[in-house]
């Protein structure tokens, strides 16, 4: 396994081996394969000419819609990672909590007809419920499960986050049952817009626009308010910020509340789009949103938004664009594979993401 120091092979051979080790060869093979696959698939699809322009437009639109939700959830990951260097694995489940809260407000509102008559007020109430419940649960989670680990290195916080994720999911299953609950569908959301032969469902448009608006508000909070600035300072260097008189504990609570509220909004939108609420709904979107956060550069707020949108887009367009072209049957079955692959590629090849600085090493 190891040679004594005197038995070193010739310099040239060693240098060659170091520069082009088996590992980097393997990694280059991976890169090459992925690029080849994407290019071949794209060319194949273009040659097949199976989809119309309108259909491509739809792939993009639906991708952006789900991407806007990933982006909102990704924000929570990114902010928490920034201040605590912790992957809050339960964040997807916090989104689920918001969706449930929204459901228990939306259903009576719809049944009483209020939501039909006053869409704006009704939506505001539903969103508020989602925000508050998710925010409160996020803060409680921090208090109970994460605070004791603030100074702990290693796996403990991440494993605890796993525990929280299970606990939240199973608690909601126990409380509200494992059946899929159906979100109300007020009549006004069935509107469709038509333009130049393309049709846009009103809900999708509403979700994208509102999501972007809420994210803009969050961006302003982070950039302009005292608390937001304190948060960025803690992200940058927690100890220095503490020395400058920033109350780190308060900042962390604020971060969780903000991220939780954002996830709550995402949960309500998610439920409005897909009309389903159940206890396990947050897990997969949560992981994907984390992928989005990594993609954009974890720790960076604009990065998370960008990454979320990008992930949604690739997931929606990818199977048709890349996989269809190389003749894979039932490509949408492999949709999650595309999302996970993208996430792993970023983690392996560019852990700092599109916009982020290199944070991956700070914790390790």
């Amino acid at each position, binding site marked *: *396994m*190891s*040679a*004594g*120091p005197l038995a*070193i092979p010739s*310099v040239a051979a*060693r*240098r060659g081996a*170091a*520069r082009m*080790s088996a590992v980097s060869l393997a990694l280059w093979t991976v890169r090459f394969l992925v690029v080849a696959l994407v290019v071949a698939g794209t060319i194949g699809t273009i040659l097949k000419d199976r989809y119309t322009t309108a259909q491509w437009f739809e792939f993009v639109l639906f991708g952006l819609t789900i991407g806007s939700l990933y982006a909102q959830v990704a924000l929570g990951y990114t902010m928490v990672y920034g201040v605590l260097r912790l992957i809050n694995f339960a964040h997807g489940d916090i989104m689920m909590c918001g969706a449930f809260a929204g459901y228990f407000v939306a259903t009576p509102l719809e049944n009483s007809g209020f939501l039909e008559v006053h869409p704006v007020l009704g939506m505001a109430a539903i969103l508020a419920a989602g925000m508050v419940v998710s925010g409160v649960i996020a803060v409680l989670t921090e208090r109970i499960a994460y605070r004791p680990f603030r100074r702990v290195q290693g796996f403990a916080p991440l494993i605890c986050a796993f525990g929280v994720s299970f606990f939240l999911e199973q608690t909601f299953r126990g409380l509200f049952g494992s059946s899929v609950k159906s979100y109300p569908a007020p009549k006004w959301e069935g509107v469709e817009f038509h333009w130049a032969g393309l049709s846009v469902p009103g809900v999708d448009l509403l979700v994208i626009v509102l999501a972007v608006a809420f994210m803009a508000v969050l961006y302003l909070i982070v950039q302009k308010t005292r608390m937001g600035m304190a948060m960025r300072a803690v992200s940058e260097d927690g100890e220095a910020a503490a020395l400058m008189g920033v109350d780190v504990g308060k900042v962390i609570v604020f971060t969780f509340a903000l991220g939780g509220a954002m996830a709550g909004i995402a949960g309500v939108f998610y439920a409005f789009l897909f009309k389903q609420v159940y206890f396990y709904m947050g897990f997969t979107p949560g992981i994907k949103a984390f992928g989005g956060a990594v993609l954009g550069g974890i720790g960076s707020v604009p990065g998370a938004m960008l990454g979320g949108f990008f992930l949604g887009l690739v997931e929606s367009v990818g199977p048709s664009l890349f996989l269809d072209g190389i003749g894979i049957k039932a490509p949408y079955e492999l949709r999650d594979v595309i999302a996970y692959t993208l996430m792993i590629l970023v983690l392996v090849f560019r852990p700092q993401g599109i916009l982020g600085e290199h944070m991956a090493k700070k914790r390790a």
Partner: protein
Amino acid sequence: MAEASLLLCRRLTRRFGGIAALTDLDLEVASGAIHSIIGPNGAGKTTVFNCITQNLSPTSGEVWFRSDRIDGLTPDRVAAAGISRTYQNIRLFRNITAIENLLVGMHLHVHSHWWGAVLGTPHTKREEARAHAEALKLLHFIDLAGRGDLLARNLAYGEQRRLEIGRALATRPKLLLLDEPTAGMNPHETSRMMAFIQRVRAEFDITILLIEHQMRVVMGMSDRVTVLDHGAKIAEGTPPEVQGDPAVIEAYLGVKSAAPTAARDHAASLLGAAASER
């Protein structure tokens, strides 16, 4: 290349983003010497270490060790070539015992395969016994006999420093890089550490490259001193030579070379002996 020099850095440069931590450094360490690197905070001293051991790959420049070029190798190959180091903020394997830390250091010199360990072959057993005996000797040498079964994190500060040096020695290096071995020590402990370092050189017959802040240590035991400032070498020579160098005084006091003699004298005395007050 001179026959006597063990390590040679040529035009070594390292940039972080746009900032140069190290610019065109030429460094030559003579075989058997104690060679110190000094300089104000942020002068790029630890970066030199990282670029030698390849924890950081240099942006440009070359590093030669004995007759081999070692930049571009992975750190474990650098260790195999015969360079070992300690860290400014002690980096022991905290969750294993002291003696196991030493055994990890012997990794390169225990010749056994994992399947040999699984099967319990006589060869493996022999190797383990040999490594064990060697570790015990080393433990004795670093004055930790009887404390070997304590977890590294439970050792006292000075013991941790010595254990880290012991671990580095366990790799049987030709060149030992010590990054501020006396940091955080009182004068008494510092003296003991100095004696210990001398003993290391004598007993193991190795070359030592030292980063140090305490001038008493540097001036008291170095054969040669290199002074860095802002990532560049500003002076090099024997301790007395360096002590008198105006550029060095300027770097330490931030005064122009045309400064009054009094200030220069003050600086020289500071560099020379002031540290002994600590």
